[in-house]
C-alpha cells in the first residue's frame, strides 16, 4: 500500500464517518418532524378541528317576526312590513366611492346619508354586509335589483319593519321601534341583554312605550342557520337550520275606537285623559295630546321633524297621562274628606261656616269663592267645592292621616304599567319635607295639601285610579295587557280598601250631586240618560302663587294671563253612579277651570265609553244639544270600520 493510497483510504474513512454522522442527523431531524406532526395531529387535534370549523362554519342568525299588538277587540295596532333597502359588502366592492355614488344616483341618497354609509362601512368587518340605504320605494328598489349585476358587492335587501296604522292614536302607549343603538347596549335598558340578535346592524328594538317595555316578549328568538363558507366568505352550502321563534302577540286592554275618540276629543289642547274599567282595572283609553306619528321614528325621523317636535311647547312626545304630574286641586278633596271620616274627627252633620277665607298662623287662606259659601257640611262642600271646609277639617286630622288615605287611594304610588315613564307623583308628609326640603312641616302645608295644592302631585292615571277606588271601594289597579299569545292575563281579586262603606257613600253622594245638582260645580256636564248618570269632581289647580296685593286689587282673570300661568283644569268622574263601570280623569294643562274645560271632555268620553259609539243627543241637557251636535260633526274620527276590523288571519 502506497503512501498515497493510505492517505486516500484515510480520506474515504473521513467521508464515511462524516456521512454516517450526517445521515444520522438527517434521520433524527425527520424524527423530530414526525414528532411535531404527531403532537399537532394527535394531541392538539381537537383544538385545530375547532379552529377549522370556526373557519368554515358561518353561523347566521335569522330574524324572528316581531310580535304583534292588538286592541282589546283584536284590532291590529301594529303591522310588520317589508322594508326595502340596499346592502353593500366592502370586501366585494371594487371602488367604494364610485359604487356609493352610483347607488346614491339610483335611489337618491343625500350627501349626509352617503357620509353615514361610508362611516358605517369603515367601522364594519369588510365581509359583513352594511345597509347603505333603506325605506326605499318599490321602484327605486327594483332599479337597484335590476342594476345589481353591474354593481359588484351591492345587493337589494328586504328587512322587516314596523308600521303603526293608527299612527297618532297609540303613539304614547305603543311607543315605537328603532335600530338598536350603542346607548341601548351600554347604558340603556338592553345593557344586560346578551341576545345575539342585537348584534345585527340596525336591528329594530322597542325604543319607548309598550314596544320597549315588552321588548323581551315581542322580539322572539333568533333562528340559527349554519352555512359552510370558503375563505372569501362565500356560502358554499347550507348545513342546517333552526327556525326562529316569532315574538309573542300582545292584546292590550285599550279599545281602539275609544282611544281614537279620546285623542280626537282632546284635539290640539295640551291635555290628557285616562279611561278605566272600574270592575277589572282595564285601561280602556289613555290619551295624551298633542300626539306625534310613531311611523316617523320607526323609519328614522328627519332633523326638521324632530326639531319641530322639540320646539312644540305642548310637549307632544310626553305621555302626559302617566308622565305629567299636576297638583290635583279640588279633586283631592275626597281624600281629605275620607281621611277625616276615617279618623272619626268629623261626622256627616258637621257644619263649618265659610267666610271666603281663614286666618292660620298669621296667614290668610282663601276659598276660591272670595265672598264665601256660608254654612257648609261634607256633602255641600264637595258639591260646591268649598275650600274653607277642608282647611278646617285638615287641621283636625293632620297631614299624616291625609297622606295615609292618599296612598291608600294610589297617590304617590307607582302603578306598574308597561309604559316608558310612569311617574309616581308625590304624596307629601312631614318626613318627606324634612328629607327633601330640610324644613319642618307647617300647618299651612297641611291646609294647602287638603285642597290638593302645595306639594301634592299626581298624574291623570293616578286620578283615574283614585276615582275607580272610591267608586268601587276596592284597591283596583290599572291593567294594560289583556292577553299574551292568546292567554288571558288573570284579573286579580281586588282587595277591599278598608274604608267604611258609609264614608264612601257620603263622598260618592257629594260627587253625584256635584254633577247632577244645579249648585254642583259640574252641573253643566251632567248626563241625562237613565242608568248612565255620572258622578264627578272638578279641580282647578293653581300653578302660581297669588300675592295679597293682587288679591286686594282683584285676582287677574285666567284669560288675562299668559298660557303657562293659567290654572290647570281637572275633572275626575265615574259612571253609571249607581253601578260604576267607567272611571275617567281629564287634565287640561293650563285649561283655566275644571268645570269649564275638563268636565265637558270627560263627559263626552264617558258617554262614548258607555255607548261604545257616538252617544245620542238625548244624553245631553237640552240647551247644549246644538253645540254638542256641531262638535260631534266637526270631530275628525277614523272610519269605525278600520277600528273594528279584526285581524284577517288567526
Amino acid at each position: 500500500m502506497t503512501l498515497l493510497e493510505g492517505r486516500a483510504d484515510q480520506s474515504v474513512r473521513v467521508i464515511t464517518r462524516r456521512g454516517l454522522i450526517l445521515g444520522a442527523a438527517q434521520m433524527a431531524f425527520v424524527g423530530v418532524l414526525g414528532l411535531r406532526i404527531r403532537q399537532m395531529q394527535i394531541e392538539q387535534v381537537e383544538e385545530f378541528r375547532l379552529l377549522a370549523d370556526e373557519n368554515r362554519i358561518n353561523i347566521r342568525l335569522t330574524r324572528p317576526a316581531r310580535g304583534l299588538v292588538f286592541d282589546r277587540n283584536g284590532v291590529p295596532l301594529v303591522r310588520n312590513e317589508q322594508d326595502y333597502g340596499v346592502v353593500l359588502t366592502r370586501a366585494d366592492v371594487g371602488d367604494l366611492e364610485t359604487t356609493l355614488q352610483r347607488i346614491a344616483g339610483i335611489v337618491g341618497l343625500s350627501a349626509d346619508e352617503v357620509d353615514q354609509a361610508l362611516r358605517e362601512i369603515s367601522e364594519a368587518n369588510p365581509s359583513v354586509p352594511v345597509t347603505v340605504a333603506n325605506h326605499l320605494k318599490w321602484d327605486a328598489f327594483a332599479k337597484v335589483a335590476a342594476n345589481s349585476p353591474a354593481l359588484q358587492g351591492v345587493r337589494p335587501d328586504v328587512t322587516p319593519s314596523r308600521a303603526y296604522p293608527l299612527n297618532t292614536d297609540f303613539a304614547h302607549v305603543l311607543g315605537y321601534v328603532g335600530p338598536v343603538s350603542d346607548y341601548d347596549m351600554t347604558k340603556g335598558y338592553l345593557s344586560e341583554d346578551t341576545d345575539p340578535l342585537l348584534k345585527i346592524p340596525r336591528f329594530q328594538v322597542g325604543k319607548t312605550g309598550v314596544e320597549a317595555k315588552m321588548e323581551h316578549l315581542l322580539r322572539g328568538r333568533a333562528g340559527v342557520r349554519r352555512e359552510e363558507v370558503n375563505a372569501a366568505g362565500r356560502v358554499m352550502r347550507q348545513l342546517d337550520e333552526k327556525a326562529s321563534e316569532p315574538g309573542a302577540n300582545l292584546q292590550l286592554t285599550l279599545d281602539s275606537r275609544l282611544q281614537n275618540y279620546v285623542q280626537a276629543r282632546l284635539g290640539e289642547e295640551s291635555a290628557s285623559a285616562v279611561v278605566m274599567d272600574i270592575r277589572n282595572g282595564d285601561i280602556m283609553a289613555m290619551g295624551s295630546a298633542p300626539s306625534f306619528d310613531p311611523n316617523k321614528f320607526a323609519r328614522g325621523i328627519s332633523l326638521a321633524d324632530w326639531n319641530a317636535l322639540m320646539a312644540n311647547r305642548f310637549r307632544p312626545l310626553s305621555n302626559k297621562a302617566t308622565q305629567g304630574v299636576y297638583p290635583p286641586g279640588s279633586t283631592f278633596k275626597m281624600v281629605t274628606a275620607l281621611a277625616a271620616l276615617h279618623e272619626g274627627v268629623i261626622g256627616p252633620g258637621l257644619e263649618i261656616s265659610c267666610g271666603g277665607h281663614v286666618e292660620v298662623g298669621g296667614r290668610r287662606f282663601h276659598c276660591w269663592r272670595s265672598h264665601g259659601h256660608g254654612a257648609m257640611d261634607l256633602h255641600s262642600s264637595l258639591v260646591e267645592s268649598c275650600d274653607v271646609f277642608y282647611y278646617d277639617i285638615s287641621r283636625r286630622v293632620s297631614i299624616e292621616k291625609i297622606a295615609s288615605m292618599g296612598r291608600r287611594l294610589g297617590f304617590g304610588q307607582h302603578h306598574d304599567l308597561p309604559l316608558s315613564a310612569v311617574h309616581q307623583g308625590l304624596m307629601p308628609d312631614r318626613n318627606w319635607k324634612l328629607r327633601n326640603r330640610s324644613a319642618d312641616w307647617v300647618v299651612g302645608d297641611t291646609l294647602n295639601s287638603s285642597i290638593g295644592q302645595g306639594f301634592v302631585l299626581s298624574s291623570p292615571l293616578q286620578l283615574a285610579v283614585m276615582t275607580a277606588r272610591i267608586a268601587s271601594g276596592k284597591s283596583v289597579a290599572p291593567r294594560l295587557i289583556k292577553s299574551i299569545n292568546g292567554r288571558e292575563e288573570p284579573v286579580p281579586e281586588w282587595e277591599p280598601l278598608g274604608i267604611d262603606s258609609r264614608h264612601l257613600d257620603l263622598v260618592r253622594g257629594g260627587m253625584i250631586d256635584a254633577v247632577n245638582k244645579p249648585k254642583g260645580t259640574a252641573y253643566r256636564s251632567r248626563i241625562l240618560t237613565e242608568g248612565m248618570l255620572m258622578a264627578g269632581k272638578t279641580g282647578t289647580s293653581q300653578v302660581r302663587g297669588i300675592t295679597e296685593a293682587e288679591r286686594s286689587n282683584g285676582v287677574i282673570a285666567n284669560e288675562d294671563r299668559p298660557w303657562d300661568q293659567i290654572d290647570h283644569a281637572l275633572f275626575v268622574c265615574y259612571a253609571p253612579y249607581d253601578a260604576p263601570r267607567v272611571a275617567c280623569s281629564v287634565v287640561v294643562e293650563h285649561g283655566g277651570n275644571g268645570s269649564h274645560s275638563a268636565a265637558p271632555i270627560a263627559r263626552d268620553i264617558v258617554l262614548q265609553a258607555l255607548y261604545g259609539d257616538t252617544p245620542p243627543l238625548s244624553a245631553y241637557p237640552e240647551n247644549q244639544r246644538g253645540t254638542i251636535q256641531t262638535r260631534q260633526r266637526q270631530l275628525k274620527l277614523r272610519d269605525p270600520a278600520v277600528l273594528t276590523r279584526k285581524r284577517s288571519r288567526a
Partner: protein
Amino acid sequence: MSSVEFNGDNAPTGPGKILFMNFTLTLLLVAVAGLGFLMLYSVAGGSLTPWAAPQMVRFALGAGIMLMVAMVPIRFWQNISGLAYAASVLLLLLVESVGAVGMGAQRWIDLGIIRLQPSEITKLTVVMVLAAYYDRLDARKISRPFWVAVPLALILLPTFLVLRQPDLGTSILLVLGGAVMMFIAGVHWAYFAALGTGGGGLAALAIMLRGTEWQPLKDYQYLRLDAYLNPEADPLGVGYHIIQSKIALGSGGWTGRGLMQGSQSRLDFLPEKHTDFIFTTLAEELGFVGASSLLALYSLIIFYCIVSALRTRDRFSCLLIFGIASTFFLFIAINISMVTGLMPVVGVPLPFISYGGSALIMLMIGFGLVQSAHIHRPRS
C-alpha cells in the same frame, strides 16, 4: 481507492447496464410521486386538471431525463462539473439582466417551451463542483484556509446572485447544501463552529439593520419572519399562512378527513395549497398515517442514497450522492418545518409532491446522477 486508479473495465456497459441501477430507489421515487399526483388530484377537487395531469407528464419527462443521465458514465459528469457550474452562474447573471418578473421575484428565463430557473440548476451544479473539487484536492490540504476559501467562494457567488433575485429559500438551500458538502469532505470542525457563530452574527445584524437603508432582506422577508415568531399577532395579515396551515395540518387527526374532504384546502383557506403548502393538505386529508408514511418514504430514499454512497469506493460519487441526498433532505426539512410552524415561511417546495416543473426536473437529474454513480461504481 482514488479515481486515478479507477478501473472502468469492471463497470457494466451497453444499453443493458440500465439493469444495474438501484431499482429500490427508483420505486421509492415513483411511490412518492404517485402520492403527489393523488394530492394534486384531491386539491383540484377530484380532477386531473389543472394540476395532476401536467405533473404526471412532467414526471414522465423527468423519468426519461433521469434514465438518460443514469446511462452516461459518472466520469463524464465529473469532468463537466466545473463547466456546468460556470454555465449555471452565467445563467444566474443572465436572469439578473433579462429575467422575466414573476411573483415579485426575478427567477426564471422564459425560453418559450419551458421556463428555465437557473437557481434550481445551481443547487445541483454547486454540489457537483464541490464533489469534483474535493475529489481532486489532496486530503492534507482540505482544512487549510486557502483551500477552504475556494469552495466557500464557489458556494457564496451563486448564493449572492440568488439572494438578489430575491429567493431566500434557494439561498438557504445553497448555503446549507454547500456546507454539508464541506462537512462530509472532512473540513475541520472549527470552521463549522466559526460558521455557526458568524451566521448567528449575520442574522443578528440583518435584524438590527431592519428599517435602515442598509437592510439586507426585502420587507416581505422580514414580515415572514415576524409571522413566524408570532403568527397570532396578525391573523389576517402576514400570520395568515402559518395559522391556516397549522389548522389544516392539526385537524387531520390519525387518519385524516379523507381525500377531497379537507375543509381547509377545499374552501381555499390554505394558501398555495398545491405548491409549497401541499403537505398540509396531505396531512389534513390523510392524517398522521399519511403524513408519517410520506416521511418514511422520504427517509428510505435518503437511506438508500446513503447506503449507495457508502458502498461506492469512488470519492466523487460518494460526495455527489451525499450532496444530492442532503439537498433532497433539506427540501423536505425546510418545507415541513415551515408548514408545521417550526420555521419561518420560505419558498421551498416539497419534493415530488408540490406542483411545479423546475424543482422536479432538477431532482430527477440529481437522482439520475445518483443512479449513474450506482451503475458505474468501481467493481473489483
